[in-house]
């Protein structure tokens, strides 16, 4: 007898709770938010997807750019000066320069007649975070560090005093001033990071399979003890980024190997067997802030061919992400319940 009531009981219970939401979904509102709890539910779905990989390694979607290279592309900054014609665009040739390297800076003057641009005098000041001026920069259109003459792009060179090399790294501001022939002044600011890394890549690499993951280790020569971070993007033979991995270790002076573990599932998802190319490798010293960034090394290593059966196909199942997802799903349920009250 009791079994006769179970199905109707469950059905009526669910109907009582969800009916208002179902009605809402069927009647297209002119303008409406997604159903209550959408933000929680979407976040839960995102976490369940991300939980398939450990935080130290993830697959890159087809067409996704190399995240290491993307962060090292210096972006020009344009700043308008109110009530002054013209636009000043400023940038550094690199996001970070290693100590001893000349700092090359660029400025473009636009939205002005060519003769005005040609007659504009551009200077800069390199300033630290305390506001102290380290030196001045004169920008020229032409010169060995300027790509072309007459293109509206001016370049300047700055060499740091040896005594001013930071202990680890330091960020600097570049105040740019462009004085037009009529005396009007355009101003803008850019900057760069000056890095003094405590270790560097030797150029030696090795590979192995560990628990169904492809582990590529990079040899590092450490000058001073500290914490070191390594990241690498793996490409397939067609030149497409496949996956990314990172690792961090505290190391003493000497030679060490830092392993980058590419989680096996990514190769199944991309159907990629190798050989693979370590397309970008970035080492940094992260003993303090700001971190000291070594220059990115491109394509230093190529792996052998692997069969897909060599790689693990099981999702990682990050427990913290799955826990967050479960809590958010519960929260989303109650959000919709509250909306029906």
């Amino acid at each position: 007898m009791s079994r006769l009531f179970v199905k109707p009981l469950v059905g009526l219970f669910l109907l009582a709770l969800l009916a208002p939401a179902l009605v809402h979904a069927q009647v297209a509102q002119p303008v409406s938010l997604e159903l209550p709890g959408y933000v929680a539910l979407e976040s839960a779905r995102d976490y369940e997807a991300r939980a398939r990989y450990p935080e130290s390694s993830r697959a890159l979607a087809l067409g996704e750019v190399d995240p290491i290279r993307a962060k090292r592309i210096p972006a020009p900054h344009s700043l308008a000066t109110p009530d002054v014609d013209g636009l000043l665009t400023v940038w550094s040739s690199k996001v970070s320069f290693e100590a001893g390297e000349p700092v090359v800076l660029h400025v473009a003057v636009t939205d002005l007649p060519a003769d005005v641009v040609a007659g504009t005098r551009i200077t800069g000041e390199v300033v630290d975070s305390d506001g102290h001026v380290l030196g001045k920069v004169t920008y020229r259109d032409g010169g060995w560090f300027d790509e072309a003459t007459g293109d509206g792009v001016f370049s300047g060179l700055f060499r740091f005093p040896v005594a001013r090399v930071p202990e680890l790294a330091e960020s600097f501001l570049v105040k740019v001033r462009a004085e037009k022939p009529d005396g009007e002044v355009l101003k803008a600011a850019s900057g760069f990071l000056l890095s003094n890394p405590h270790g560097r890549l030797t150029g030696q690499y090795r590979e192995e399979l560990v628990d169904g993951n492809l582990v590529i280790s990079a040899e590092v020569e450490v000058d001073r003890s500290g914490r070191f971070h390594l990241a690498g993007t793996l490409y397939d033979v067609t030149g497409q980024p496949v996956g990314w991995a990172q690792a961090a270790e505290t190391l003493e002076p000497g030679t060490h190997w830092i392993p980058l573990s590419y989680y096996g599932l990514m190769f199944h998802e991309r159907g990629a067997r190798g050989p693979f190319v370590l397309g970008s490798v970035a080492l940094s010293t992260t003993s303090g802030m700001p971190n000291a960034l070594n220059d990115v090394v491109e394509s230093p290593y190529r792996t052998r061919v692997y069969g897909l059966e060599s790689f693990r196909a099981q999702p990682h199942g990050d427990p913290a992400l799955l826990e967050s997802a479960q809590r958010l799903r519960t929260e989303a349920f109650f959000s919709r319940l509250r909306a029906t009250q």
Partner: protein
Amino acid sequence: MKLRLIIPLALALLLAALVLPQAASAQPCFIFVHGKQTDTGTFTNWNNARNYWIDGSRDFIRTATKSFSASFYVVGYNGTRPYWESQAAGEVSNEILNATNGGADGGGNRCARTWSQGGTFWVVAHSMGNTVMDFILGNNDSSDPNFNFNGPYSDVANRISLVISVSGAHRGSEGADAVCGNSGALCNFLAFFIQDCDDATFWLRSDDGVQVRSFSNSPARNVWLTGGYEAIFGASACLSGEDDGVVQYASIYACGGSATASYDNSNACNNSFKQEASGFRNLDAGHENHDDIRDDTDRDTRRQIPDGIWNCSGVPCAPNTVVQSNTSTAQFVALLY
């Protein structure tokens, strides 16, 4: 026959009566993180941190928590320090952990449920508060460059559910560029946001050498992005594209590429072109400036942006569609849970 329907119906109603009251208590706890400061007041006096969200009779926290029906906790950190320092990211991470443990903020407010009791926690951050959260959530794993740099970042990332970013300075601020570059009187901003090129402002420039993405990875939990597009006279002339008078859209919506690229409500970067590969999602935009958006004083128009969460007749609205009138960001937050 009637018994087959009456008894299950009665039991269903009884079950609903038991479940429904839990709905009210299953709300997230809101943790509020303020933005940049020109003095240490929010760090040394909790009331200053609380008042950051109030203007006259309007109160962002009261509105967002539905008249305090959802529990909340207000963080106060030193907004004059760089986002990564111990009195910024370190302080914020420790306070968030305290909140999830059921500890009280400086005003005695506690989350209704602790983490161990199954609680969920939404961080609502304004302006530089988001730069701080990006650093914390992007350094939560032992393989991250600045793992647990000066606080329990891993615990924070494990416990919070998501972040609501309100006019966040994820890619810095062109306002900071202008002030540090001495761009002139008309580019100087409201004193309570940016007065001079102090330490916090220096680290809020849009230069890649100071940006948080250069020193962190994807946030461990989703950051949902909303911001303002009401200009501030004079100040907005110094910013690229749409802005709220202090922070440009490329930063508010955590865009990839150039931090000073020009965007507006019709072409703001979508969820596939963010400063990190994952973790940033679009919500919408409100006609509020950088100051109004944090204190519920401007209940104005809201517009859809690419990948935003508003529907028009059941399908996503076209970007730049007016989706609401007379609705502040605080009121919008109250609609999300």
